[in-house]
């Protein structure tokens, strides 16, 4: 192997090592448990990096929380109980899907409301244009560009 190739190979190994670091060697009993763990970890936010889930993050805190998650699953807690455990300590912010309540309804329905408002605007404009096309325009056409 030539020297540059050896450097490349070493780099590739180092990068592979980094990618593997985010996966803890947790002693899962079976594939079902592993799948449950992964599903939960993907839905919980890493508090340090904030835009990564517990499953993605290699932050030390995320690793601690994955350990806690694993222990809670081992304890036989349900998904709801696990999430409750974490929200009691870290707040709703740990959940990637925030609960539907008074503070969050606009996060859930805001986008739909905006789309509806946009649709309503389009409908009103189109109707006006149609009505205006038959009759003589009341205003100069350039006003309608808005």
């Amino acid at each position, binding site marked *: 192997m030539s020297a540059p190739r050896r450097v490349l190979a070493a780099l590739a190994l180092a990068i592979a090592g980094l990618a593997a670091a985010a996966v803890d060697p947790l002693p899962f009993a079976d594939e079902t448990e592993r799948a449950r763990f992964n599903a939960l970890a993907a839905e919980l936010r890493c*508090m340090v990096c904030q835009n990564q889930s517990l499953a993605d993050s290699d932050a030390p*805190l995320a690793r601690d929380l994955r350990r806690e998650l694993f222990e809670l699953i081992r304890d036989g807690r349900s998904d709801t109980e696990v999430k409750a455990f974490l*929200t009691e*300590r*870290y*707040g*709703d*912010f740990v959940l990637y899907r925030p609960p539907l309540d008074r503070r969050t309804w606009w996060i859930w329905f805001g986008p739909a409301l905006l789309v509806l408002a946009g649709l309503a605007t389009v409908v009103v404009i189109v109707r006006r244009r149609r009505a205006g096309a038959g009759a003589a325009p009341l205003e100069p056409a350039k006003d309608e560009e*808005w």
Partner: protein
Amino acid sequence: MIARLLPLAAFLGLVVLLFAGIRLSEERPPDRLPSVLIGKPAPSFTLPGLREGEAEVSSSAFLGRPWLLNVWASWCAGCRVEHPLVERLGQRRDIALVGLNWKDERADALRWLAQFGDPYHAIAADPDNRVALHYGVYGAPETFVIDAAGVIRHKFVGPLTEQDLQRTLLPLLAQLLAEAGS
């Protein structure tokens, strides 16, 4: 006329909204999360003491007077920033200042204390994040204000500042001491 002003109004509305967002993020930085534990009993713990010959540190020992739980580590740069203020708090005798050495190596922590000074009345060692996790700690430094009854009353995220002390912490401690005395 109104149709012509509409875009301007929409634009001004947007300007107001965005400026409000900037102001809000200055007052309440989005990376400082509010603690959900405020008003709730502080999770009880018993941890090994950090210092040589320091017995177990138990949260129940601090009941009866207000106390501060300061989460710190030798690797934490912000802890050095707030250290002079923490030292000032450590000089008080009417409250307890408890350090929670978080995710740290004991030797490093002791060296840090030797170098910068040890302000704490007691230091609990939590190298594996067993206790801090229950407090919802997600970074260091963090400082919890706990009243005489063991209820968390406030939490500071990030290095304490002079402003934090003057505006929030000192008045709150005075209030908690008054509550405990009555």
